[in-house]
């Protein structure tokens, strides 16, 4: 038989030119559809629609459609870089493995620690989002549709109640951790069903937006007790300059909002690396997933602009974000909330609002898994205590690692909900801080063919573009993209990433990441373990 792929670590050959014997590990490639679905689930479409409201609010004149399209196009470079790395080092762990092997284990650990720490904050944020953008929106729209004042009041109450925000977020986090500890496989099955359901809400939204124009939405706003034009006028009075006319500069400045989704099309490298995809099918799946996600989100953005109007979206969001009394609705300004206003069907409203809640429940366990896998990897490499990779003999689950992730995320959730706005400001810095890790990976990609010459030359990515190794070119392009977003986030006040609290947190986490490795090195040396040996290449002569 010829042309198989293999589980992990081996180079899959094309159908011609190589013969295989019957031996373990020889498997067929992941089916193209599964591969694409896997990648799309990491580019969460329901979360990407935040661009519709936040872009015109923070950057008047920004077009959510062009923000989506341009961002998706430039994110091709990072996808190419990560897919090339995955082809040569098909191991879950993403940056930790790429950077440790290419540059230095210290750099690999620091880069991975940095992004994992921020992922923990993002997990907590997912929990927080459930109440204002999921439950509140659902209660409000169903309440109005069913003419039920109690539900409408609940919508407003839960959005304003810190207790509910924490309780519901904490329940979601505890539920996730419990299911991951007690029945990971069952949970992953549920997660797949939830993923498909979340896309149903997106499909319903597209249909509703196609069927309803601006006039219908103006009527809907009135039905919900508001006045479309008054929202715009009130926002002007509050200082919003208006977002009706296209502004290319602000469109480019708003791109980091879309990067928060499309920039993470590479996350498969953390979770999907156990199986090598031969003949570039892994790369193609990542690109196709990016393309499909971009087309769907761009379509949603174009329809949103047509039906709601960018000026209204910007105005409503400015009022909502500021807690202005002129904001006429019980639920915060949010894409799915406005879409659900277009129908009076309780069922459709439920489906639309649940799609966002479900999208969070898709993202939660996936991000949780990335965090616990990072803890295992560090523990196996003796960088953190062995306890973190221990498996409970009864449940056979990594209860300690799951417990650590849960405890840290609950603390973060409490800080997001109850602490001053400073902590939420820190969260806006997550994108900037995570870029530090991506930048290190891009540099690793640039130098990989030169630092690991033998590995590169015998790998399937040994290709040249413009006379340079393809991965070096992809690394340079990805670095340019990452630096662009880093500078955007660092210099654009409207994105909130450069708040002093966030910058302080970035520096502190980066410093901890850099300090832990030498500390661990010293502790292990006292035990007689030389961590310097971990990635030292043996002579192959």
């Amino acid at each position, binding site marked *: 038989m010829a042309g198989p792929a293999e589980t992990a670590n081996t180079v899959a050959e094309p159908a011609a030119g190589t013969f295989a014997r019957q031996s373990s590990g*020889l498997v067929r490639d992941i089916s193209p559809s599964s591969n694409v679905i896997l990648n799309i689930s990491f580019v969460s479409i329901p979360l990407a629609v935040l661009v519709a409201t936040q872009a015109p609010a923070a950057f008047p004149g920004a077009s959510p459609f062009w923000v989506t399209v341009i961002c998706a196009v430039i994110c091709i470079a990072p996808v190419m870089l990560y897919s090339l790395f995955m082809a040569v080092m098909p191991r879950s762990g993403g940056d930790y493995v790429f950077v440790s092997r290419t540059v230095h284990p210290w750099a690999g650990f620091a880069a991975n620690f940095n992004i994992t720490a921020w992922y923990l904050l993002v997990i907590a944020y997912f929990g927080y989002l459930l109440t204002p953008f999921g439950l509140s929106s659902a209660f409000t729209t169903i309440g109005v549709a069913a003419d039920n004042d109690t539900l409408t009041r609940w919508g407003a109450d839960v959005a304003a109640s810190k207790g509910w925000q924490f309780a519901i977020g904490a329940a979601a986090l505890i539920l996730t951790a419990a299911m991951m500890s007690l029945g990971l496989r069952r949970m992953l099955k549920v997660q797949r069903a939830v993923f498909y359901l979340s896309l149903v809400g997106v499909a319903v939204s597209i249909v509703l937006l196609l069927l309803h124009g601006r006039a219908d939405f103006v009527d809907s706003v009135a039905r919900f007790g508001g006045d479309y034009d008054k929202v715009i006028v009130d926002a002007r009075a509050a200082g919003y300059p208006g977002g009706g006319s296209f502004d290319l500069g602000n469109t480019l400045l708003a791109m980091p909002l879309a990067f928060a989704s499309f920039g993470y099309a590479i996350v498969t490298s953390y979770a999907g690396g*156990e199986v090598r995809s031969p003949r570039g099918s892994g790369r193609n799946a990542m690109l196709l997933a990016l393309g499909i996600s971009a087309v769907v989100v761009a379509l949603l953005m174009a329809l949103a602009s047509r039906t709601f109007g960018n000026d209204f979206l910007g105005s409503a969001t400015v009022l909502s974000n500021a807690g202005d009394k002129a904001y006429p609705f019980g639920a915060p300004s949010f894409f799915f909330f406005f879409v659900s206003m277009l129908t009076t069907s309780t069922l459709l409203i439920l489906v639309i609002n649940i799609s966002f809640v479900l999208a969070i429940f898709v993202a939660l366990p996936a991000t949780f898994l990335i965090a616990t896998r990072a803890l295992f990897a560090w523990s196996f490499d003796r960088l953190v205590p*062995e306890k973190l990779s221990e498996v409970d003999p009864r449940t056979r689950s990594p209860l300690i690692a799951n417990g650590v992730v849960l405890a840290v995320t609950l603390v973060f959730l409490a800080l997001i909900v109850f602490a001053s706005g400073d902590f939420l400001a820190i969260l806006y810095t997550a994108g900037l801080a995570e870029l530090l890790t991506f930048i290190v990976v891009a540099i690793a990609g640039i130098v990989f063919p030169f630092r690991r010459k033998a590995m590169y030359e015998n790998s399937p990515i040994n290709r040249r573009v413009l006379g340079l190794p393809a991965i070096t070119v992809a690394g340079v392009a990805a670095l340019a993209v990452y630096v662009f977003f880093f500078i955007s986030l660092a210099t654009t006040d409207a994105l909130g990433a450069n708040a002093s609290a966030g910058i302080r947190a970035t520096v502190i986490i980066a410093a901890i990441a850099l300090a832990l490795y030498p500390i661990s090195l010293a502790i292990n040396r006292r035990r007689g373990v030389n961590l310097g040996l971990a990635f030292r290449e043996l002579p192959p002569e």
Partner: protein
Amino acid sequence: MGLFRRSRQGGERTRVFFATDVHGSERCFRKWLNAAEVYEAQVLVLGGDLTGKLLVPIVADGGGWVAELHGEQVRAADDVELEALRGRIRMMGRYDLVLTAEERDRLQDPEHLKSVFRTVMHDGVARWMELLTQRLAEKDVAVFTMLGNDDEPELADVLRGAGAATYAEDGVVELPGGYPMVSVGFSTPTPWQTPRELPEDELAERIEGLASQLDDPARAVFNLHCPPADTHLDQAAKLDGDLRPVVDSAGPVMTSVGSTAVREAIERHHPLLGLHGHVHESPAIQRLDGTVCINPGSDYGDGVLRGAIVDLEPDKGVRTWQLVQG
């Protein structure tokens, strides 16, 4: 080399370097030969699955030769380039075979292909054992080899013939420092029906047959190719009936492919150390009832030698362990 002629080199500490599943990678095997010196190990253990899975024909073509690597044709114009090409293929963990176009076409016949594979595997392992003897015969290091489930049983004789190494599966062997080692290279049944597989009950019997010879199992090393079931060490991609990995929205679905017989043997005898392989994508360390179990994984296709350095001491047992990627 007689095993019991070796004394407790290096004093009380016995440093073991364990690697496994090199699958025909010349680069990894050569690295393993050099590992004792670099890691200052007194014991080298190669844990099975020595033979490769893929064969790359180098076909005579108009005065030169041509082979296909990573989907691209690579040409060799003269003998020097041919040797370089052969070396490159071996370094990638494949067997090279120079033949004519007609001979290449005959490889489509499964029985003929099987026979050709037997020959190249035998020749490859024999060449490695010669190299091992040249490199390690004069060195102060105890060397242990064993077959895995992917290796043809008749290759055991080739390994037994290596002067500088002990074939570990022939009985309980003793490591420097007086640690007995039990070795079984068989695995439980796989979807690929590989040459050395046993049902769980027969695997249990085989392990028990060796373990029952131990005076003090708590000082023993269990060198069992198949990892214990339901651990970090045995997680592989779940496959569907068409041998495609099952994927869900969180990535490939991982499942336990280890052995319950291995797990029960470890939990019953509580050896010092479990050395395992078989599941390349699951490098990990986990304690089972106090026994440190290690699967260093394998990256043979990238020419990276994954291994484990383990220090044993009489009073502390496993004093330290460390996974390395050399």
